[in-house]
């Protein structure tokens, strides 16, 4: 610990950030102005770790950028490090470090050159560099690759390098905007180790925004935002007390999939705030005003018991209350898959034992690099199958081969009874695909998009019109709205509608929940489970490990190899003691896999 950490030089009492009545107005895609932030009162105490949490569009990035002096407030006052940012932006910027969501790494420069460049930009002296660079490289575990161009790093490594570049000097205030977004659990854990180490060693004041509640839990203060408003603030303990006594967990009946019980609970939104499958059970939050008797017919003879409340529970309660105040509960559209869904029929009965996807010894190489190495698995009809893996593990490559976007180097690949290597066009007719990013034609209307994709799948005339009417009703879409300016949730519904227009037997979803808020994620999974109950097979990739609990079976890949395959329960068991939840099970399995491969082939590691 350094003797005179900068945090201690400042008077203890004086906050590093003070915001009063802060307001920012933006113009929406439909050219109507809206408040990106309003009435924000906000303080950051020196030497502490403060979190901003909230879904996309909550105003977290806007607040960060205003603090960094990159945006002008439209109302209120904002003081950073005792200076008025509005007038002394440069003076503030000289003393803070800001890591935006997409950090500006120079992709063609090496790791070392990027570090040197940022040190030059900040005027860091030679002596400081000699002391600091080795420490940063050791912490980020990048010392081995200093000559590698930043463009060739994995997503997690890029984020770590971005953090290292931000920390080439000791700032009086460090702003981190969603540093862990799109980063796999392992890199996420490493990032947080670095952040906490820097706080301990240098007494940094840090403001971090995040969508992960386990990250917010590590912070001293948490501020919850939604749609430009601050909903609550306090220590994680204070926030947790809001849901004290409301948090429960129920075990499904034998043979009943956890997600069916979850669907049953979350559909009863007048009594239940939130429900998620976890570890074969269902964790749920009751509405405060609901009595035990009122829940009896929901839970029935299943075993329910109270559980310890978590920050995530408090967050869900705050969001749900805020959304219902705004009179727009984004509940799942009812009956997406027809009437039989309501009955909550067990999915296992509908499942055919014959595989609908057969993968044998699948290999994909790009030059010398093996992206996917000899992978085999089956997916059965009506299953929800999850593909999980860290960034660069080969899951996207596998996924793209399955939907026929990428030819395999070798191996056998059969989708919907058709060999994908010989009859790709036929196979494509039987699958639907929803891309990660909204990938429909933005300047066409909803109807025009659906007409196009329907036509591309060979539907025409009456059949096409009927199908469009059905699917528009199912997903509650306004046919005349322009696709590009729909709110995110509706864009995703449209993408799903386009992917389902030809009633495919298999639906491929690539990272469907990245960048969407927790409420929309619940609604989305509700739609997915309903689709699966109607017999559609679902293949999904995700980096939210807890979402694996919705899947019938999951596959975990790392470095192109299949490390685990089976039901979520089986995968957790494979992880052994460390498999308390999906996130830690995932980390354990990937680490076991890496250790095994290190001990197996140390020579090749040394050569490459």
């Amino acid at each position, binding site marked *: 610990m350094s003797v005179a950490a900068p945090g201690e030089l400042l008077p203890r009492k004086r906050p590093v950030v003070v915001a009063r009545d802060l307001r920012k107005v933006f113009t929406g895609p439909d050219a109507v102005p809206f408040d990106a932030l309003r009435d924000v009162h906000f303080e950051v105490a020196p030497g502490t770790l403060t979190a901003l949490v909230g879904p996309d569009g909550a105003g977290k990035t806007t607040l960060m950028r205003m603090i960094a002096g990159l945006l002008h407030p439209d109302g209120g006052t904002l003081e950073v490090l005792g200076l008025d940012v509005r007038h002394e932006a440069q003076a503030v910027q000289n003393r803070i470090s800001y890591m935006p969501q997409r950090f500006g790494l120079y992709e063609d420069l090496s790791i070392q050159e990027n570090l040197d460049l940022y040190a030059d930009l900040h005027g860091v002296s030679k002596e400081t560099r000699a002391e600091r660079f080795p420490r940063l490289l050791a912490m980020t575990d990048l010392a081995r690759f200093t000559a590698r161009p930043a463009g060739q790093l994995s997503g997690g490594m890029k984020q770590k390098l971005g953090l290292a570049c931000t920390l080439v000097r000791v700032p009086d205030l460090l702003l981190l905007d969603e540093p862990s977004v799109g980063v796999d659990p392992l890199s996420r854990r490493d990032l947080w180790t670095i952040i906490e180490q820097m706080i301990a060693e240098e007494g940094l004041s840090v403001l971090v925004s995040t969508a992960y509640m386990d990250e917010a839990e590590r912070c001293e203060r948490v501020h919850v935002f939604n749609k430009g408003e601050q909903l609550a603030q306090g220590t994680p303990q204070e926030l947790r007390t809001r849901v004290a006594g409301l948090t429960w967990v129920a075990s499904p009946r034998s043979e009943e999939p956890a997600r069916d019980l979850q669907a049953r609970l979350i559909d009863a939104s007048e009594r239940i705030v939130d429900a998620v499958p976890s570890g074969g059970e269902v964790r749920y939050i009751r509405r405060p005003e609901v009595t035990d008797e009122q829940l009896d017919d929901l839970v029935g003879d299943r075993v329910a018991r109270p559980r310890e409340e978590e920050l995530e529970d408090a967050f869900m309660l705050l969001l749900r209350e805020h959304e219902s105040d705004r009179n727009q509960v984004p509940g799942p559209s009812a009956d997406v898959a027809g009437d039989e869904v309501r009955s909550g029929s067990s999915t296992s009965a509908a499942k055919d034992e014959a595989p609908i996807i057969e993968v044998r010894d699948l290999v994909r190489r790009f030059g010398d690099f093996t992206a996917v190495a000899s992978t085999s698995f089956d997916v059965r009809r009506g299953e929800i199958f999850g593909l999980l893996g860290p960034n660069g593990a080969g899951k996207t490559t596998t996924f793209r081969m399955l939907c026929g976007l990428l030819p395999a180097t070798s191996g056998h690949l059969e989708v919907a009874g058709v060999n994908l290597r010989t009859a790709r066009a036929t196979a494509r007719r039987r*699958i639907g695909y929803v*891309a990660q990013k909204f990938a429909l*034609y933005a300047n066409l209307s909803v109807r025009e998009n659906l007409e196009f994709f329907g*036509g*591309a799948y060979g539907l025409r005339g009456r059949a096409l019109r009927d199908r469009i009417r059905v699917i528009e009703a199912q997903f509650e879409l306004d046919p005349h709205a322009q696709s590009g300016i729909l709110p995110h949730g509706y864009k995703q519904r449209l993408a799903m509608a*386009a992917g389902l227009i030809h009633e495919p037997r298999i639906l491929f979803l690539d990272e469907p929940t990245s960048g969407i808020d927790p409420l929309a994620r619940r609604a989305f999974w509700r739609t997915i489970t309903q689709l699966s109950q109607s017999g559609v097979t679902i293949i999904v990739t995700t980096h939210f490990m807890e979402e694996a609990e919705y899947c019938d079976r999951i596959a975990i890949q790392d470095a192109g190899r299949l490390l685990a395959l089976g039901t979520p329960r089986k995968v957790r068991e494979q992880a052994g003691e460390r498999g308390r939840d999906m996130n830690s099970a995932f980390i354990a399995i990937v680490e076991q896999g890496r250790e095994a491969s290190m001990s197996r082939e140390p020579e090749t590691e040394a050569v490459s």
Partner: protein
Amino acid sequence: MNEFAALVFPILTLIRKELLAIFKDPANRIVLFAPAFVQTLLFGYGASFDLTNVPYAVLDQSHSAASSAFLAHLDGTGVFRRQATLSTPGQIAQVIDQGRVIMAISLPSDFADTLAAGGDAPVQLILDGRNSTTAGAASGYIAAVATAFNARRSGGGGITLVRRAWFNPNLESRWQIVPAMIATLSMLQTLLLAALSVAREREQGTFDQLLVTPLTPLQILVGKAIPSIMIGMLQSSIVLMIALFWFQIPMSGSIALLYLGLLGFTGAAVGIGMSLSALALNMQQAMLYTFLVIMPLTLLSGLITPVRNMPQVLQIATYVNPLRFGVDLVRRVYLEGAGLGDIYPDFIPMFAVAAVTLPLAAWLFRHRLA
């Protein structure tokens, strides 16, 4: 029949989608048509080799009736405008250096005497060679004026040269350039449009969505090429209308043949554009590739400078340039009234280019990986 419908219907859907996507964007609606208007007018008025109002200076050291007669002749052509009358040879360099005149005519003091003695009186012409085209044309005019002057003096007789320029009787460069614009301008836009069509979808992620549909690369190719060709033909029509009705350049050939030729030509241009598009990973690359090829295509087309003046190697290279044959075809049909029998050789290289680039683009759709 049903199978045929199953093949064609998705293509029609794609064509409709492409046209909607293009015309629903208000910026596109302007960008696709306004430049065709403006550029045709610009080229029609601006790009001209015809000399009018050429500023010149005179150093008349003869001060005789003969020298005045010669200069009157010169001023009477309407091509030249006397900017300065000099008194000493030393002033010549000054007016030319300053760019006030592009040539200076020096009549020696013995001009009238030599002529009277029946000798050859030299007239010195000093030209500004910084623009060789204008200088060359101006000296040509002066030579013609001198010939006419001589003929007048000798009172007839001798040889008179009677010029008849076919297809462009007054040798107006506008006649040479505007019809060529029917091919050139539409190529610039169709090339860019086609180049952006796949690159835009790749960048916005919609191309994957298109590739997972049962559409075959051939269907995608046809569905994307036809809208580009349609817009190219529309632009050609705009330029044609301006040529016919604004500049009133008479058309000698058949409209049907002109359009047939344009179809072949635009097809080849779209083929090049689609290949660039399939090669590019994003719109920026597609744009860059397009600008890289447009320059040589225009330069080596014979639009301004004749192909046969080029070095042998470049002349051979022009065979892969559809614009060379497009320009040739349009000019010949428009000005000369050429029939299919005259111009069919122009089709061969254009078809060859289309036959290579279109399938190449289709192949690249699935094999060019990000």
